[in-house]
Structure formats: structure tokens, C-alpha cells
């Protein structure tokens, strides 16, 4: 294992007058070249973490280490960070090229080199030839590209993106998502971005750090976060889920109160309580009538046809199950009809540490 490029060590931020910390003891480390998403609902402290890394907010305690060196005492303007603000923060009194060369000018880079690097940065974000434009003459997507070029041209230690896609319309968002990922891979810059959008985080990041109320809930690859959530919060914040509680009756089988028996992959000692989750889209319809292990019969209470899938809720015993089922041209379940939903044991997610 090589040394991590960035290490965030027990970072805490308590704002003056606040009763509890906005960022509470967060530790994360990133290898060089990784793209990490800080994901969480608004007010979870993710932007505060980002701003502390940039140096715009001073941490209450904890350290931020880059290449093993604590940068807490380094002033913002000497940190060499590339930051893209949510509203881009392009300088309105300068042309796009002047915006991009600003950081180079601050570093005293000679004119000739600046010109070459600005042109290369414009090429990188596909804005070639638009350097002389004013900020107001660019579309939202182009402004974001310019903001990315401006932060990358200085060859920053880290690229920090604050809600990078939130100001774009839906179509542009998909395009920029791939674009940002592509630019990041080509430049190899270690990147941290903040988002409240799970799709954005899952599709762009190498790893996700899920935050809630200032605390780090879980950190892991998109698949780990999605399929092995450690906490109820992660399970319910990332994607929809049917979360159930029960007791292990034998290793790999749990008895769920009011529902029935659920087989899952993993161990567990008999008698211990366990929390399990089934993602709605992992249910399938089965023809086997009645209840059994991993299949549950219920009455459809609510159904929404959404083209590719139907989303239904079915009451089975005391439980209400949510299922997303693929549509087909044949007969689909209707409201009030009886259905049996089945799930494969490997599609049952154990919430929490599954090493027990």
C-alpha cells in the first residue's frame, strides 16, 4: 500500500454559538488519483468538509494531511487547491481566458507559458476558441467547463467540486457527469466532490463517503455502499429499500416479525437480532402461491405504472412491501389483486457489520 495522498484526520468543526458540531470527527483518506464523493442530505456537513480542505473554513480540531504534511497552517492562497464553486464564481469582469490565466498570473508564470497552458486547458474542457468570450456569453454548461479549466490549469494538489451538477438542466447534467469523470481520469487529479444526489455520487465516484448530521456513516465503493450498507441511514438514503427487523433462527435465516422467514447470505448466530433490507427492484413475481421462505403473498394496495417498471406496494401480514417490477405486454398486477413476491437470498442485504 502506498501512502495516501490526502488524509483527513478526526476533523471537527463547531461553529460559534452552535450546540453541536457541524462536522463531527470525520476521518477519510484518499490514494492519489481517486475520486471521492461526499454524499449526504443538506446540512450534513459535507460542504463544510470541502471548505475546510480548501482552507476557507478553519477546523475546530483535527488535521488535513497532503502527502503526509499537515496543511492546517497553510493559508488558502498558498494551498494550491482547484475549487469549482456551485455557482462557478467566474469573474464577470474578465474574459474566459483571463479567468483561466488568473491562477497562473498569481503564481508568476511567464506570459508565453501561460498562453500555452490556457490553450491546453480550454482544449481539455472543449472550449477551444472561446477564450475571448465574456462570462455572460457562455451557456451554463460552458461556464462550468470554464470553471473546471480555471481550477485545473494551476495543476492543483486536489480538485474540489461543490455540487458540480446542481445548476445544470437534466440533459446537460448527464453529459457533464461523463465529462467530469473523463477529465478527472485523463488528468489523474485527486478529486473530492460534494453532492446530495445519490445517482451522481454512485455513477461518478470511485468511493463514496456518506455523511449524516456531521458524522461519517460509511465509506466505500458504490457497490459496497449500495449492497452492503452499514447503517439504516445509508440503507435508506441510497436507493429505496424495504428494511425489516428480525431474529436469526439459524445461520443465514432470519425470522421477521409479521412477515415470515427470510434467507440471506451471511452468518449470524441464532437468537441475535438482525436488520435486513430488500431493494424494491430485486423482488420478482412468482407463481407459487402462499407464504414460504423468501416469498411473501400480499394484496396490492397501490400501484404506479412507470413505463419500464411498475412500482407497487403490497400488504403481507403486518408488513408493507415495496416492489419495482419490470413491465411486459402481458397481464400486470392490479390494485387489490393478490401477488407473491420472491427474492433470492443473495439479494437480501444485511444492514450493519455482517462479519458477526
Amino acid at each position, binding site marked *: 500500500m502506498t501512502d495516501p495522498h490526502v488524509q483527513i484526520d478526526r476533523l471537527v468543526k463547531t461553529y460559534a454559538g452552535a450546540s453541536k458540531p457541524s462536522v463531527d470527527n470525520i476521518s477519510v483518506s484518499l490514494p492519489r488519483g481517486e475520486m471521492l464523493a461526499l454524499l449526504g442530505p443538506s446540512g450534513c456537513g459535507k460542504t463544510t468538509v470541502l471548505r475546510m480542505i480548501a482552507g476557507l473554513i478553519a477546523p475546530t480540531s483535527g488535521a488535513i494531511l497532503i502527502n503526509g504534511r499537515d496543511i492546517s497552517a497553510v493559508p488558502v492562497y*498558498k494551498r494550491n487547491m482547484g475549487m469549482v464553486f456551485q455557482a462557478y464564481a467566474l469573474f464577470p469582469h474578465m474574459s474566459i481566458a483571463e479567468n483561466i490565466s488568473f491562477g497562473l498570473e498569481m503564481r508568476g508564470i511567464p506570459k508565453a507559458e501561460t498562453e500555452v497552458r490556457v490553450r491546453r486547458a480550454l482544449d481539455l474542457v472543449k472550449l477551444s476558441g472561446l477564450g475571448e468570450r465574456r462570462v455572460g456569453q457562455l451557456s451554463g454548461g460552458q461556464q462550468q467547463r470554464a470553471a473546471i479549466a480555471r*481550477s485545473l490549469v494551476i495543476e492543483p494538489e486536489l480538485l474540489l467540486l461543490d455540487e458540480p451538477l446542481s445548476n445544470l438542466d437534466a440533459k446537460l447534467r448527464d453529459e457533464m457527469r461523463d465529462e467530469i469523470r473523463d477529465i478527472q481520469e485523463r488528468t489523474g487529479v485527486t478529486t473530492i466532490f460534494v453532492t446530495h444526489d445519490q445517482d451522481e455520487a454512485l455513477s461518478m465516484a470511485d468511493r463514496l463517503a456518506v455523511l449524516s448530521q456531521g458524522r461519517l456513516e460509511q465509506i466505500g465503493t458504490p457497490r459496497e455502499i449500495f449492497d452492503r450498507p452499514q447503517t439504516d441511514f445509508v440503507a435508506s438514503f441510497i436507493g429505496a429499500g424495504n428494511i425489516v427487523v428480525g431474529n436469526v433462527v439459524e445461520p443465514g435465516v432470519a425470522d421477521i416479525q409479521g412477515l415470515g422467514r427470510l434467507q440471506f447470505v451471511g452468518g449470524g448466530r441464532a437468537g441475535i437480532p438482525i436488520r435486513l433490507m430488500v431493494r424494491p427492484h430485486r423482488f420478482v413475481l412468482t407463481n407459487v402461491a402462499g407464504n414460504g421462505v423468501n416469498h411473501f403473498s400480499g394484496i396490492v394496495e397501490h400501484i404506479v405504472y412507470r413505463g419500464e417498471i411498475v412500482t407497487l406496494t403490497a400488504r403481507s401480514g403486518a408488513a408493507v412491501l415495496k416492489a419495482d417490477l419490470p413491465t411486459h405486454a402481458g397481464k400486470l398486477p392490479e390494485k387489490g389483486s393478490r401477488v407473491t413476491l420472491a427474492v433470492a437470498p443473495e439479494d437480501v442485504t444485511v444492514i450493519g457489520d455482517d462479519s458477526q
Partner: protein
Amino acid sequence: MSEGFAPPVDKVPRGLLLLLLVPGLFALVVTFLLPILWLFRASFATSAVKALSGSDWSLEAYREVLLDTFYWQVAWNTLILGVSVAAIAVILSFPIALFLVRTQSRWQGVLTALAVAPLLTSSVVRTYGWMVLLGDRGVINSTLQAMSLTSGPIRLANSSFGATVALVEILMPYAILAMLSGFGRLNAQLEEAATVLGANRFRVFSRIILPLSLPGVLTAALLVFVLAISAYVTPRLIGGGRVFVLGTEVFNEATVTLNWPLAAALSMLLLVLFSSVIVIYQRALRALDT
């Protein structure tokens, strides 16, 4: 059916729409345009009586104004007073306006109101206030003498120094107001962006704050300049007859020596001075914008 609805604007006959302009236009013509035209006419008369009857045309008043170095001196004094008052008022108001725009304090509204509150007092009263401070036996001079720092009074009032000080203070609220409305492009995030890109405080100020606040600064400077060169009360009162600016001279010629043509010609000079400054200014502002 449709009596309750006004027809769309483009269906209203043009003549009817123009009617809307009539009251304002009428007031402007009667109270501004006609007097200016009359003033223009009067500046070509030879005496107050002839100016009233409008019976003669002469360049006498202009000859007097343009050939007499005294009036050139007066015009020059006025320009210097205007420029220095504008410069000092803007320099002093800039930090205040910057603070008021950027502060996160919940007292922001109260502080802004306080900054412009002096406008509620007449400039005559405020000028007298300055006379109390700056006069030969005023607060400053008596303090200095009591401390034996000076033997006799230093001339603070009755001089262009006093007029400048008083005008700066009187006109600062206007400068602050003009700047507050002109600082719309300032934005804390732009400063953060510049800092992250490697700009220290000085460079953030010179490269971001200053250029973005320039339109507001220039508007404020123009406003103060125009108000200063047309000021009469303050230079007259605090100048004690020793400060000669166009405002005081126009008043003097019109009411003391009753040389109306000369007063009118001086007014025209003031008007030309005004308008040329405004034209140059707007050119400069436009150049900044592009």
C-alpha cells in the same frame, strides 16, 4: 362585455399613449426648459431691464466673463473644489459602503440608515455645525490655543479648506448611497474563488473587489462632483465671502450687483462645465463596460 377590461397596449391609439407624457412634460417645460431658455436669452442682454423686455442682443456679458481673469479663477476654483470634494468623499465613503455591502451583521439595515441619516438635516444646519468646529474661535482653534499648541487662530473656516471639509461631510451620504447601489456585482464567492486560485488579500482587492466596485465608485464621484460644483449655501456660509465659486458668484451678480446678464452667462458656464463632465464620464463608464 369588455368594458371592465383595458384593451392591450398595442391596440391603444398612439396619440392616447403620448397623452401620458403630458403632465410630466408640461412640468418640465414650465419649470426647467423655459427658465433655462430665458436664462440663455438673458445672458445676451445688456442689463436686467433689457433682459426682462428682451429688446437687445449683445455678447457683453460673455465678453466680461471670458476676458476677466477673475471669472476664470472662479471657474478654476469651482473645478478644484468639485474634484477634491468628489475625490475625498469617495475615498472616505468607499470603506463604509464596502463594509455595509459585505457585513453579515443583523444591524446592516440600521447601519445603512445611520450612514445616510445626515440627509435628514438641512445642509445649512450642518454647515453651521462645521462653522462651530472650524471658526477662528471654534472648538478646534480654542482647544489648540488652550493647549498652547498655537498662539493665534489658524484659518480653518473662511477658506476653501473649510468649504471642502464641510462639503465632503455633507455629500458623503450621497456617495455612500450611490456606491451601495453600484456594488451589485461584488460577491463574496468571487473573492473566495480568487483566494483559492492563489490571490492574497491585496490581490483579491486590486484584481477583484476594486474592478467590480468601479462602476459604483465612478457614479458616486460624478454625483458628488456635480453637487459640489453647484453648491451655494456651504461655500457661501463657511467661506465667509472669501471663497469664490460659480454658485456664489451667480448669486452675487443676480442679487447684489443686479447684473442679470452676467449672472446668466455664469450660469451658462456652469451648465457647460456640468454637461461636459457628464459626457466625458459616461464615455469612461462605457469604456469600462466593454
